[in-house]
Structures are given as structure tokens and as C-alpha cells.
């Protein structure tokens, strides 16, 4: 299993501060993408009823969909619908339906990147 990603290249200023959007007020050192990912993983466990999983079990770059893929979660189209709804509710970010969603749902990394790139602008 790959060590948890804590890449310094995801630097402050490259993306909107997640802290502002979700009220975390976290300092830049924690990295907005990492906050998104952990919020996303907790959301996945809750919404998809992955009762026997912890956030640490969910590998950032593993394929999410498709049966029996390595350390993936083997999610299906019903999970995709549930996730899309929950992500829109939690982050205010829409996930397009149909084929456009495929690359976004590829992995936790891909989903988090889409979320961070599309967070709604907050008024000051």
C-alpha cells in the first residue's frame, strides 16, 4: 500500500483554500487537497455503508469502480449516484452524469481533484 500522499507539491495558493469553503480554517500546512480527501473518504464510508472500512483502508489512487480490482472498492453505478448526490450536498460541487463522470470517478485522487477545482466561490 502506498504511503499516504502528503505531497508538498500540492502547495498553498495552487487551489482555493478548502478551509474557507468548509469552515475548517485550517492552516495551509495541512494542504487543501488532503482535507478534501479525508472528508471525501469519510463521506464514502458513511454514504456507501462501507462498514468494515476506515479512511486508511481507502487507497487514494486505487480504481474505485469495477469488480474485484486490486485494492479498489468495487463500487457500482448505484454507488456513483449516491456519491454524486452526497458530494454535491457536502461540497456544492456537481458531478456530470454519463460518460463525463467516468474519469472523475476513477479514484479518490481524481474525485478530490474535481471537487477542489470546482468548489463554489464564497463571498468574502
Amino acid at each position: 500500500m502506498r504511503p499516504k500522499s502528503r505531497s508538498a507539491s500540492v502547495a498553498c495558493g495552487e487551489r482555493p483554500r478548502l478551509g474557507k469553503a468548509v469552515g475548517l480554517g485550517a492552516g495551509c500546512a495541512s494542504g487543501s487537497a488532503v482535507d478534501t480527501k479525508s472528508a471525501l473518504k469519510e463521506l464514502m464510508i458513511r454514504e456507501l455503508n462501507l462498514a468494515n472500512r476506515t479512511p486508511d483502508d481507502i487507497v487514494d489512487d486505487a480504481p474505485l469502480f469495477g469488480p474485484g480490482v486490486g485494492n479498489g472498492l468495487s463500487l457500482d453505478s448505484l454507488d456513483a449516484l449516491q456519491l454524486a448526490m452526497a458530494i454535491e450536498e457536502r461540497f456544492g460541487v456537481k458531478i456530470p452524469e454519463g460518460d463525463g463522470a467516468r474519469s472523475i470517478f476513477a479514484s479518490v485522487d481524481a474525485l478530490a481533484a474535481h471537487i477542489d477545482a470546482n468548489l463554489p466561490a464564497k463571498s468574502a
Partner: protein
Amino acid sequence: MSAVRSGVVPGAEAGRRVVVTGIGAVSALGVGWRALENGVFEGRSGVRTRTLFDLAGARSTLSAGVDDGALAAAEPPAEGRSRTDRMAIAAAREALTVAGVAPAATRVGVIVGGSTAGMFETEALLARFEGVLDADSTTRMRTHPLSSTVEAIGATLGPFSRARTVCAACTSSAIAIALGAAWLDEGLVDAVLAGGADALCRLTYSGFGALSVLDPAPARPFREGRAGLALGEGAAFLVLEREADATTRGARALAALAGAALGNEAHHITNPEPGGKTASGILSRALAAAGLEPRDVGYVNAHGTGTPQNDANEALAIRAAFGAHRVAVSSSKGQIGHTLAAAGALEAAITIAALRRAELPPNVPAGAKDPACDVDLVESSRPERIEAAVSSSFGFGGTGASLVFEGAARSGAGSDSAVAQRARIEVARDEVWVTGASAIAPWGVVVWDALAALLDDVSRGGAVVRLPVTDATAALDAARSRRMDRAARLVTTLAEAALRDADGRGARALDRASVAALSSSAYGNVEGCMKFMRRVLDRGAAFASPADFPNLVPSSPVSHAAIYLGLGGPAIATPDHAATAEAAIATAVELLDGGMIDAAVAGSFETVDALAERVLAPLPGVASLRASAEGGSAIVLERRSSALARGAKPLARVRLTDAPSDARSDLAVPVAAAGHLGRGGVSLAAACARTAWRGERLLHVGGGLAFLFEPVMVEG
């Protein structure tokens, strides 16, 4: 495989053939069978702007709603009557009138397929309920149970000698019709009113929207670019009789029900099985049951919802079942919408009209056909003399039903070779044996030998080993059961334990592909509906929870069990206040005796939720409880021939019997031991166990049904 026999509707012998003598319908095309027929064949659509309710965040503005004025004229609003009830009463009344059948004068049964019942009237109050019911809410809640519709029909049009409610998602009323034929064949009734009803409601509308299968444009079955279904509402009933009886009383037969087959993909709770293999098998078995070849069939009325997945897979299924014969196909759902539990009966009515008019119904709306749907669509209605036609329905969980209708005249049905080949299908009057039993009660999960002993202990006031019920379902595989709610976990655990018990009693295991599953709770997933609707009303339909919606259908728990255990027979819920297990087991015996299924695991269950119990308080079953507990039961039923073939020793032989109205069960589980509405089922399981253990003959009564368990001596 013994399943070749399932799907047979006996009565191929002269006089015992099942005929349709009455039809009644309410739909978006109007009130009455004539309105439905005219609308369908004239190519009109009832899909229009939704007016029954507003719904913030909805994915569509369209629905196929019944005109309020027309409905009010046919069946005025009344206190304690839901919209579903009113449509059902109107359709049932018409069917009985057309048939000239008077329930008071003869033994008439009634079977209602449903999925929403009074949900339109109760969904808002469920969403907002915080513990106290006012007078208006109390009245509304009385229309909530799925069984309230059959009661409304009984109160208005009865008395009926036998009554049942069935839910199998969108195949509910098709299954009601098949069950009605079984009742006739077994001489349980002299006529039967069989069909279904479902009104529109915000819950189903937002649920299908959340699953992204609601088309914002008018639904276009089998067309290129289709994007989902149009939700509709309606009701339809057929009056079925044995042909000899209809002839004797001079009734006109409108059509014959030549055959039927029921089955289950058991693949996924919402998605159809890619390739349509099971669906194709159901079609083929229905034709075989009717003694017909594919070329004898002139028309298929498809399920055809207009979703990309259904139509493509169904087209494959039709092609596979009909082979070289390019049968004409159309779906009526572009005109009447998807009417959920009423669909099977409404579309059967349309199929019968096609036979009678010698005219094929069109596939509306027009448009380019999806090349992936390689079937011959009827583009506009055209005259064509057809000898036989099929109506197919599918639903959540993979439930499937195909009904085969023929013209009422016996002669000229199909080619000479088809007539010659038509098998005189005889279903041997095999006994029904119980070969496994399980129960979950405050003492945990038990199978028959422990159950019999424990009950003796309990009735003597002895100590009982108590296992926490929360542990009872822990053995399920976490990954494969993650979509299950508590109810589904209970049913699956019960079914698995009973089936393992049945396996162990024989040299060979029961073939899971041949097993039907029948189980439900009395009042459905009330806590799930409350939670789902609270979100819809608080946050808008856009945030309805897709994964939670399928679990709101009363047949969802038994469907989950079928998927988990690979059970290929129909998955049916039979809610009936406190006689839910009795209804399930009776239905299983009736379907077994009718040759419609080969084996079944049947029982009931109840879950506990404090808020749900408070909102259900006005209902009779709930009011009589002093304390409630979770639990349930399941028994395995198979034919004697099947049990002998796999070397299985039974617990008991079971028969449905008549019992005097003051009869009491020989063995009743004390309320304290299994204090829930499903305790009848626990008594039933216990009776089987006791019969085997002590060789006792035991009677159980409940819900107007009586069961006799007798010991069986088996060599070796």
C-alpha cells in the same frame, strides 16, 4: 431441471382453462377499460405536465396522472380512502360489473398487487412526524398499510371469500393474476378479482429521479436517445374464472390466460442483468406453460420503461426467446407511464384488447428506434389477427413475470402443429413438505431442533438462553450485504439458516435457482420512508438518497435475500397486518400446488423503531402489542417429489385447510417469547418443528387461513 415444470398454469384440460370474464381500468388515458383501449389504439399519450403535487428539485415536470375530475366522478374522495384505494375500487367495480359476478353470491377471491398504497396521503406526515398524531394524521395513517387497499375493496365491493396483498415491485399485479389462476385451479375460489393499483406520490417520484431514471422529456421506449421513464399511476383488475363455470353461467370469456411464468434475476437491487438471460428464460417458460411455440405468438407487450438499460436488455431477451420469429413488440409506458404495481394488470388489459380487436397497439411516441433494440416495433396501430400475445413485466431486484393470453375461442389457436404439440400439462398433485425452519426471536437464531426444545422451555417457564439479536445477522458477508438495511439482514439470515437446514436434511442441497422467497413485515419500512421523505422535503428532490430508495419498496428485504442467496424464484412480499407469515406460506403453497414455483422459503419478520411504532399506533396489529421485539421466521417448502429426489427427510407435510371460524392454533408462541407482529410465523415454524420432533398433527390459524401440519414417515 425440475424448474422446467414451473410456470405451468394447469387447466389445459377442457373446462378447467382459466378465462378472463371482466376487466376494469383507471389510467392517464381515462377512467374505464374502454378509455384505456381507445387511448392506446389511437396512439394518444397520457404523459403530460405533472399537477398532482409540487416537488422542489424534481428532475422532471412530467407524469402520467389520472384526471382528478374523472376519478372523483367514478369514486369520490372519502375519509380514510387513499387515492390508490379509489382507483382500485373504481377498476375493481368495473371488472366485476363487466363479468356479472356478485361477490356475495359465490366464492370470489381478491388479490391486489401494490407498492405505495396510501403513501401519497401519508408521506408528508411521515417526514414531519415527531411523536404525536393528531386526528387527521390518525385517519391518514389508516390508509398507509399495503393491505389497506384490499380491505377497501372488500368493504366496498365484498364480501370476498379469500383476500391477499402481494408486492413484488413492478411485477406485483402480474403476479396477482398468476396467483389468481392458481387459486382457480386448486378450487380455492370460483372466481377471482386479480390486479393492482398505485397512485403517484412524491416518494416514488423523487426516488426514481434520484436513480437518474426519470426522463425530463416524454419517455420513449426503445427509441434512440431515450433517457428514462415517465412515472404514471393507475389501477386495473381482471376477473378470472374456470372456463366451465363461465360457460355454465352464460358469461362471455374475453380471453384465456393460457400460461404464466415467474422468476428472478437475483442480480442487483436496481440494475437489470446485462444480456437479459433470465428474462428470456421467463418468456420461454411462459410459452411452454401455454403449450405454444414462438411462432404462435403474434404480439409482445413489453415492460419497456424507456430506460436505456431496461429496453436494451429486454430486446435481447425477446430476441433470445423468440429466435427466428420476429414477433411484433410495443410498450404502453409511453402512453400510460410506468404505473408500478398496476403495470402488470393494466398492460394485461391492453394485451387482451389487442387480441379482441385483432389490432396491434403502437409503440408511442414515434422516433428513431435504438439500433441496440433489435425488435420489430409496432409504429402505428394496425389490424392483425393474432392467436396469442404475451405481456411482460420486470422490477427492482430482478423480479420478472410473463403472462400469455389467447383468444377465447379454442379453435384455430396457432398452427395445426402447435395445437397438436400442445402438451396436456398435468401437474401431479404432489404433497408440499416442509424441509427446513428457522426463527429469530429474543433468543437469537435457531433452527428447528433447538426451536422445538426452546418453545417447550418457554411454555414451561423455563430459562431460555438469550443471544442479543444484534448478533443474529452478524454472519452475513459485509461486502455482499452492504446495501441491506436491518430488515433485509433479518430476512437473509432467516432464509439462509432455513435453507441450510433444508440442505442438511437431504443428501443433496436444494437448487437455489429453483427457490422462491416470500417474506415481509406488516407495515413496511416506515422508518426508512420517514428518513427519505424528510430529506426530500427539507433539501429538495435533488438530494433524495438514491441508495435508500429501493429499500422503501415492501418487497425489498426479500429481494435482497434472493440476490444474496442466488434464489431464482419470484421474491414476493405479502403484508397482512399480523398474519404476514400466514399469507406468505399460503401463497407459497398455492404457487407450489399450481406448478408456478418448485420450492420456497417463506415467513415474515419485524424490525423495531420507536418513532415508527408511534406513527403506526392507530393500526390494529400494533395497538394489540404490549411490547415489541425484532424477529421473524422462515420455513422451506418443496414438493414431496423434489425432497425425495434429493433424499431429504421432511419436518412435516403441510396443507391449506378450512377451519371453523372459532378454531385456535394448537401451538401459539407466547407474545412474551416473540413479541412482534410476525409471531404467527414463529408459531408456524415451531409447529413444523414440533410435528417432526413429537410426531404431532398440528393446526395453525391466522389471517383467515388454516394450515395443517402432519408428520411424514420416510423410509430410511
